[in-house]
């Protein structure tokens, strides 16, 4: 029966979404933690918001709207996350978390000096500077890909990358390897 077949398909898509979200959440969360400068509660908010938005598009089929397909869900998820971060800041004040924090049972870092210093330094940067550094050096995205996510020109991204690195270098110092060894 057509309706039953349709429902089975929806079930499969929901299963796929949950499998995808479960697999990607750890990395999305780490990205979010770096973006927000170590605020783990806000990082959880962002991950939930990004995944929720992706779910809303996950099986967006309708007779009104042509089907849209997310060709690279993993990459797209991180794009949504970064854009959610940049848009989140302006409306953060009134927002209540969709869910409260969950146990951070494995949050004890193995490299505390590096993590503290780096996260603190990131927190001092402007959001767009943080976003460009996270995309380029944590996500390992190219200048062009970063430009697409941030909706800026590649030239602007190059300039912003150099300047943001300069700012973080002024905080962290020249020898990051020495910092990591502390």
């Amino acid at each position, binding site marked *: 029966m057509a309706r039953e*077949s349709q429902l089975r398909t*929806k079930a499969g898509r929901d299963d796929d979404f949950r499998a995808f979200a479960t697999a990607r959440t750890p990395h999305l969360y780490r*990205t979010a933690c770096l973006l927000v400068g170590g605020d783990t509660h806000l990082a959880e908010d962002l991950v939930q918001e990004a995944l929720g938005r992706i779910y809303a598009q996950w099986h967006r089929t309708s007779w009104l709207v042509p089907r849209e397909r997310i060709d690279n869900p993993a990459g797209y998820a991180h794009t949504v996350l970064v854009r959610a971060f940049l848009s989140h800041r302006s409306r953060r004040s009134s927002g209540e978390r969709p869910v409260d924090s969950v146990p951070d049972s494995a949050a004890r870092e193995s*490299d505390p000096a590096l*993590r503290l210093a780096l996260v603190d330094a990131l927190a001092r940067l402007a959001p767009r500077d943080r976003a460009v550094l996270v995309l380029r050096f944590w996500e390992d995205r190219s200048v062009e890909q970063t430009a697409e996510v941030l909706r800026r020109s590649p030239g602007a991204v190059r300039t912003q990358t150099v300047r943001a690195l300069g700012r973080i270098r002024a905080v962290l110092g020249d020898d990051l390897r020495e910092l990591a060894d502390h």
Partner: protein
Amino acid sequence: MSEDRELPDTQYEQDFSAAMARAGETFHTETVPLVDTAWSYGRRLRRRRRAAMVAGAAALALVGVGGVAVADLPGGGTGRVAAAGTPSAGATAAPVSGQEFLDLFTPLLPAGSVVQVGEARGTESGSPQIRLTHDDGSGLVQYLFSITHGRSVPDNGDGCAYATAPDTCTQSVTADGSLVVLYQAGTRDGEPAGAKMWSAKLDTKSGYELLLQEWNREPLEQGAGITRVDPPLTPDRMAEVVTDQRWTGVLAAIPKYPVVTVHTAGSGTNGVESWTVGPFDPTTFPRPWTRQESGGASPSPALPSPTGPSAPKPPPLDGPLSGPVTLPAFPPAGP
């Protein structure tokens, strides 16, 4: 900033990239509650969009046919999308509302009063949850109690596998094979001095997770200080709460997967069409969650293969993030 900083410094970029990798990999969280809430949020988003879309289409159609812009739809001229849970799809009891869930929970707290209820979600959501602030006279406490369908026990069955000093973690197995994990976490980065979070988690043999958390502060306020030295419920007491028999009825009321009846504009009676989404095959949902954190390496998901005749091929999960990214409109068209 000196002039040479305007030029790329390849060595510094490499070092910074390595530092980001090392720092980023130290962040870990529990995956299941995040995914669960994201899923619920995504469903709400989708329903709102569908409602807006239907309302717009109905108005267009009516204008097109009769030139009269009066939409004879439920909800006073706008499309309405109503969702209602029904006790099926494996549920053996009537739904438990958020208020009923709250009424079951609060008697288990110490004597005192509930100051604020942040959230009280019933079984129709598929993941009942309570978040509240309580005052027992010794300082405000934040509680979070949730029941989710799905276990978060690592494959090796060690519920304390991710505990690190100075946190303390103990676990025990109940007579029916369920796992109780008691966790006492100390202050995290960015939290006020003396902040503590204690939790008790019951992973039932039948595949549910009951998680109770308490804070000696109000965690919604990042900058707020602690309100007391310790949270009030001892780990043993928390274990008693999550293993209380009263939750049996709540578990029975949780659909294996939420069943949602959607009413919207359509060709049915009075212009309203209804259909039901779900139930879904309980053998394929929830998946046996596999914790992905492995302490350093990039996540390399070992997901179970979908079963069942209609399960489509999963999307690529662990491919590189580089490569072409096709971007649908963003932000998505909202209401």
